[in-house]
């Protein structure tokens, strides 16, 4: 954060000055940027175009740049399709996204605070036991985790979707590092006033750490909303599909309504595009602080 503030007004790498070579370089850079922008936005254009087209428009042999007749009716058609329970899937994703994020932050922040601030003779050993789980590649554990969850009887349930994902060693690690750097004076002042660890944590530390929480929350929510492998493993019947599983099943179904599917895609990315629009500052902080997404 400090780094970015410091460098906002920094002179950029001195170069491509007033020489001809410099000018050609600048032009080439702008061309490269322009091509990159077109390529990066192209898929978003396809989502919008296909979501608002008729099937005939999409499959026509000649490319239609944009449908002349916008098919807003595709939205109601999508939600009325009885083969794919899209409303239910969106609900499941929202619950998984919100509860999963809240639970993960609560557990990891408390663990991180305990490890950073409460003296306890085995704290080191517990910290190492948490960090050790970072060595294990997350996706490799989906088979054994499925075994545990199925023996708990949690297959095809929201519990099964959410609870096993709540215990992120990485988040606990990040919180510990963050709290180690939290100004101790603030906490000590509260302790002198007689507050215990619990009171200090909730009344002093958390309210003063909201940007850090926001950054991790934004990243965690996106990760939860977009995750696919675990919901695919757990969601064995359609009532427990998340939106990602529902769309994936949609595409492998016998008959694909391509315009309907793209409307589903548009609906599914809407919450995240909103997060990107309004919380991008936190997101970028979160990415640079954690250096990892999922």
């Amino acid at each position, binding site marked *: 954060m400090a780094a970015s503030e410091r460098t906002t007004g920094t002179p950029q790498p001195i170069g491509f000055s007033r020489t001809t070579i410099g000018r050609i370089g600048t032009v080439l850079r702008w061309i490269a940027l322009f091509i990159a922008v077109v390529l990066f936005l192209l898929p978003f254009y396809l989502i919008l175009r296909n979501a608002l087209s008729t099937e005939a428009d999409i499959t026509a042999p000649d490319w239609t740049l944009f449908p002349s007749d916008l098919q807003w009716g595709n939205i109601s058609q999508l939600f009325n399709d009885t083969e794919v329970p899209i409303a239910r899937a969106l609900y499941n994703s929202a619950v998984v996204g919100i509860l999963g994020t809240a639970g993960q932050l609560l557990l990891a922040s408390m663990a991180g605070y305990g490890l950073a601030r409460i003296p306890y003779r085995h704290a080191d050993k517990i910290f190492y036991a948490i960090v050790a789980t970072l060595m294990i590649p997350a996706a490799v554990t989906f*088979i054994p985790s499925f*075994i545990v969850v199925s023996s708990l009887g949690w297959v095809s349930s929201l519990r099964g979707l959410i609870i096993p994902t709540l215990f992120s060693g990485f988040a606990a690690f990040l919180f510990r590092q963050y709290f180690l750097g939290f100004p101790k004076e603030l906490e000590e002042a509260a302790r002198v006033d007689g507050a215990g660890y619990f009171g200090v944590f909730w009344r002093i530390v958390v309210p003063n750490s909201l940007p850090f929480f926001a950054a991790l929350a934004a990243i965690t929510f996106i990760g939860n909303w977009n995750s696919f492998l675990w919901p695919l493993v757990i969601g064995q019947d359609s009532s427990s599909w998340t939106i990602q599983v529902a769309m994936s099943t949609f595409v492998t179904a016998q008959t694909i309504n391509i315009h309907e599917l793209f409307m589903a895609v548009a609906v599914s990315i809407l919450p995240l595009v909103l997060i990107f629009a309004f919380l991008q500052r936190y997101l970028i902080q979160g990415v640079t602080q954690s250096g990892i997404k999922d």
Partner: protein
Amino acid sequence: MSASVKTATDAATTGERRRPKRHKGIAGNSLSFWLFVGPFVVGLLVFSYLPIIWSLILSFFEAYNTATPSKFVGLQNYVDMLTDHNFLSSLGTFTIFAVFIVPLTFVLSLALALLVNQVKIARSFFRSVFFLPTACSYVVASLIWRLSIFNGVRFGLANTVLGWFGIDNIAWLSTVDPPWYWLPLVTVRLWLQLGFYMILFIAGLQRISPALYEAAYVDGANPGWQVFRYITLPQLRATSVAVLILNLIAAYQAFDEFYNLIGNVNYARPPLVYLYGISLGSIQDLGHGSAGALILAVIIMLVTLLQSRIFGFGKAGD
């Protein structure tokens, strides 16, 4: 601190209560500690440690459709997996994938970061555009790629563009010779992850002291390549190592785009798709699946360690 702990434990073990106040303070601490850390540790034991141990046990048993097997087979599952042509070829698929994706991601995300960082107007617009695909899931991107860009028929965007030049349709996802399917597989991941690594590189670039560039300018360094080669690149060492390692680990765990773009086919099947198929498909072969998962975990850990050793992760810490 350690001295007072010792006193307290001594007091506790001998039953002496000469310093009850101190003792209470320590007991209060450990109670608070467990209130804060306990729930997390319990969850980690149940959902991280228990599965791994269980999986290790299962890998020594014949376990079809059961998580509580009785027939011990020793190392047979490991021998089977290491001689299983399909498993080995899935490791080969991964290797080809990594050879494409890791260098391409590195070079292109660094290039984007340099471009965005040198722009003087609308910088945050460009940064947002390149970062925006991070909002999309692999499922979403795979659907766009599969149904609208590389669908292999005339109305797909790729074939439409080829059609303008009079080139015939290409069945992108099912053509094995030449292996066109790599084009959608690699580009979909590039689109999704370049912006993320670009953000890491931009952060790295902004940490470089402007004084270094000024010094290079004074010394008459060529502002293009020389400055990049002798100042920017060495200063980005820590970020570069992080990008390479994160990227390679992520590539090992590729699942979503393979599953959604081409499914469980033998010509392009990464390890996780194969393991998913054998352990959670029609025959739930958890013994072989567990053995395969553990082999994969060991490979990932070894490669990560090796890569850290080669690039000197310890030296580059910041």
